Every structure is written in C-alpha cells, then in structure tokens.
C-alpha cells in the first residue's frame, strides 16, 4: 500500500505547522521589512521631490535675481554711459571755454605785444628818422633841421586865419603858450618863435619851452586847449596803421590755423 493514512494525517499537520512557522518567521518579517523599505523609499522620494521643488524654487528665485541684477546692471551701465557722455560734453565745453580763454589771453598778449612793439617801432623809427633826416639834411643842404622846423612853424602861425588868431589870443589869456620839441631849439630860435607867438597872443605873454626826447620829429605849440603841431607824426601814424594791418592779418591767419587744428583733434 503506497498510502499510509497515519502518515497522510501527520503530513497534513506537519504542513499546517510549517505554514504557521513560515508565516511567523518568514513571511511576516520579510513583508514587514519590505513594507518599511518601501515606506522609507516613498519617504525619501517625497523628501527628494520636496527638495527638488525647493531647489526649483530656489533656482527660479536665483534666475529672477539674476534677471533683476542684469536689468540693474544694464540700467546702471546706461546711466554710466549717459553720465560719461554728459561729463564728456562738460569737459569738452570746459576745454573749449579754457581754449577760448587761452585764445583770448593770447590775443590780449599779442595785442599788448603789438602795441608795445608798435610803440617801440614808432620811437625807434622816429629816432632813426630824426637822426637820418638831420644827417641827410645837413649833408645835402648844409643846413640844420631846427631852424627849418622853427621857420615852418612860424610860417604856419602867420598863415592862420584872423578868427584862429583871435581864438589863440583868447586862449593865451587863460594859459600861456608852450612849445615842445624833441630837441633843444637854442636861444635864437626860441626868441624868434616867442616873437611870432607874441604877435598873435600879445607882447607880454610868456612862452614856455620844453624838450621831449620821446617826441617824433616836429614841433608842437599849445595855447590852452588849442594845439598847433607839425612834424612827421602823421607819416608815423600811416606807418603804424600799415604795420598794424599786417600784424592783424598775421594773427587772424594764426588763429584760424589753431582753430582748425583743434577741430581736427
């Protein structure tokens, strides 16, 4: 007999006991451990999801901050560029003003130099002309220049109109006549000129003589506010006018070149 019924019953009991034992020692602990692990994994996943969400939020915040910083940076850059442009214009304006001031000062300096130069020129030309005239007159005519000047003055005095002579007489009441020359006239010539003036202004009118080495060649007579002068001053004036024009033209051309050079920079 292949089946032993006692063994069958015993094996049923054995199997049921085994089911209990395995349930107690195998399935329950293993399933519990798996459940806990799954729970832990779920928790970790949830944590990871939270962390990821937080990281995404942080990343979004960073992105926003970065955008804001970039916008701020752009604004500040634009502001800085505008400031720099304004500053550049101010500096250019300031430089222009300074250049204009320098140019003006330079012009003034040049003007002063020109005036000084012209004065010097006038004096030198006068002195030299006087010296040459004297020499040439003496050399060519054998006469001194002073008597000729005195003669010309006397001739002009005598040639005055009646009204002018009366005005001179009127003026001589308030102030006595004065004669100014670049060199001393000498006693004879002074007497001659005094006689000529006294003919017009009155015999008792004193005549004062003075010498001015700075004066150009000529002779000047003043009676109060009236003045009668003769000499080469008029020629000097024309010379001065001509030299001044030449200088002006030279300054203008220099100034134009300087302005063009500055504009080119």
């Amino acid at each position, binding site marked *: 007999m292949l089946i032993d019924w006692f*063994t*069958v019953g015993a*094996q049923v009991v054995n*199997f049921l006991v085994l089911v209990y034992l395995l349930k107690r020692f*195998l399935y329950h602990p*293993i*399933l519990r*451990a798996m459940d806990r692990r799954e729970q*832990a994994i779920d928790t970790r996943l949830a944590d990871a999801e939270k962390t990821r969400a937080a990281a995404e939020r942080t990343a979004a915040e960073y992105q926003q901050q970065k955008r804001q910083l970039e916008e701020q940076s752009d604004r500040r850059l634009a502001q800085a560029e505008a400031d720099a442009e304004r500053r550049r214009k101010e500096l250019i304006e300031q430089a222009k003003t300074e250049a204009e001031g320098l140019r003006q000062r330079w012009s003034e300096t040049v003007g002063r130099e020109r005036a000084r130069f012209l004065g010097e020129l006038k004096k030198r030309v006068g002195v030299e002309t006087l010296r040459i005239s004297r020499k040439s007159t003496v050399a060519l005519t054998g006469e001194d220049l002073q008597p000729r000047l005195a003669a010309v003055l006397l001739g002009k005095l005598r040639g005055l109109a009646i009204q002018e002579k009366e005005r001179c007489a009127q003026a001589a009441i308030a102030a006595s006549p004065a004669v100014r020359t670049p060199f001393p006239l000498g006693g004879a010539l002074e007497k001659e000129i005094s006689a000529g003036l006294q003919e017009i202004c009155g015999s008792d009118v004193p005549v004062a003589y003075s010498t001015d080495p700075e004066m150009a060649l000529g002779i000047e007579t003043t009676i109060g506010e009236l003045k009668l002068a003769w000499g080469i001053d008029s020629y000097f004036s024309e010379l001065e006018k001509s030299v001044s024009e030449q200088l002006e033209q030279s300054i203008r051309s220099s100034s134009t070149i300087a302005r063009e050079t500055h504009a080119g920079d």
Partner: protein
Amino acid sequence: MEISPDATIFWQWGIIKLNATIATSWLNMLLLSCGAALITARLTTGGQLSRWQNLLEVLVDGILRELEAIGLEPPRDFLPFLGSLFIFILFSNLLAVVPGYRPPTGSLSTAAALAGCVFIAVPYWGIKRQGLSGYLKLYLQPSVIMLPFNIVGELSRTLALAVRLFGNIMSGSMIGAILLIVAPLFFPVIMNLLGLIIGVIQAYIFAVLAAVYTAAAIKVEQQQAEKQPQKGAFHG
C-alpha cells in the same frame, strides 16, 4: 529498496509511527524555520541588504508577483498557504541531491496530504469569498448536467496533483538509485542534476496549479457578476 519512504519506519507504537517521510519532513521544517528565523532576526530596512535577506525577499516577492499574475487579490492573503506549498516541495526536492536523503515529496502519503490540503483550501476560500451558495453554484456551471462532471473533476484534479508530484519525485529518486547500481560513474550525477530541474519544476507546477484552482474558485462568481449587467442591458 522501498518505493516510498513511508516504508522506512524508525519507531512505532500502535498505529503511531515515525517513518522516514515524517522524519525528513520535520528536518525540512526545522531547517526552513530555523533558517528563516536566523535570517529574519537581522533584517535591515536600509539600502544595504544581507545576501540571505536579499534571497528571501526575492523569493517572497516572486511568489507574491506570481500569485498576483494568476489573479489572486490580494496576494498576501494566499501567500502563507500557497507560498509554503512551493517552499516545502522545492526544499524537499532540492535536498534530494544529498546522499541518503529521501525527499518526503517522493511519498504518495505526503503528496496526498498536500493535495488534500489544497482540496480543502480551495472550497474554503471559495466559500469565504462567495458564500456557501455562491461556491456551490460553481458545480452547476455551465448547467446542472455538469454537476457530476464537476465533482469528478474536482476529485480527479486532486488525485492528479498528488500522483503527479509523487510520480515525478519518486521516479527521479528511483532512477538515480537504479543508475547507481547499473552505472556508478557520471550517470547518477547527470540524473541528479536532472532531478534538481524536475524538482523545481514540480514544486512550481504544484503551487501554480493550487493557485489556479483557488483563483478559479473565487473568480467565477466575479465573472458571472460582470456578465449579468451585460445580459440585462441586452434584454432591455
């Protein structure tokens, strides 16, 4: 040489006896229980698993997945019974390679006991899930005429379970023993390897068939409940 280990009796008192089948079953139970207790005493729930814990988790999880695939919901309700069937038969069959060990599954008594457990467990779950009348109606499907055939089918499949397991394992052991006499070199080793494969397959077949029977007992009513509204809708 005895065909069944039942015949090897170590101790007897009246009808109570201790034969090789019972003894090896106890040995199996002892090894399985102690091994499980030892391994599960140091379970970890972290990421680092011990090798043995990993093995047991794979085993338990595999059984659960198989039960779920067969249609047993929730699979944890059926795990202790069906899982123990598989583990007990598998362990017995694998130990058959140990010289001198005679697997208890090679005994028709053991196979009959296990098949009898299935024979009782299937209606138990069927009645538990569908009620007594619901379960008994299964025998009248698809018509009343099929009642005797269903009853015979129930009995014959139980018998087939028992005889299939017994025949395969017993034959494996017998062939091994006979070959040991005829050709003591190489052939027994090959046959033992073949016996291992057969043992694993038989354990799987036994457990899966038990699961399928159980699933059939608890699912027919569900299928009928699903069909009922469709019929109503058709007639309406």
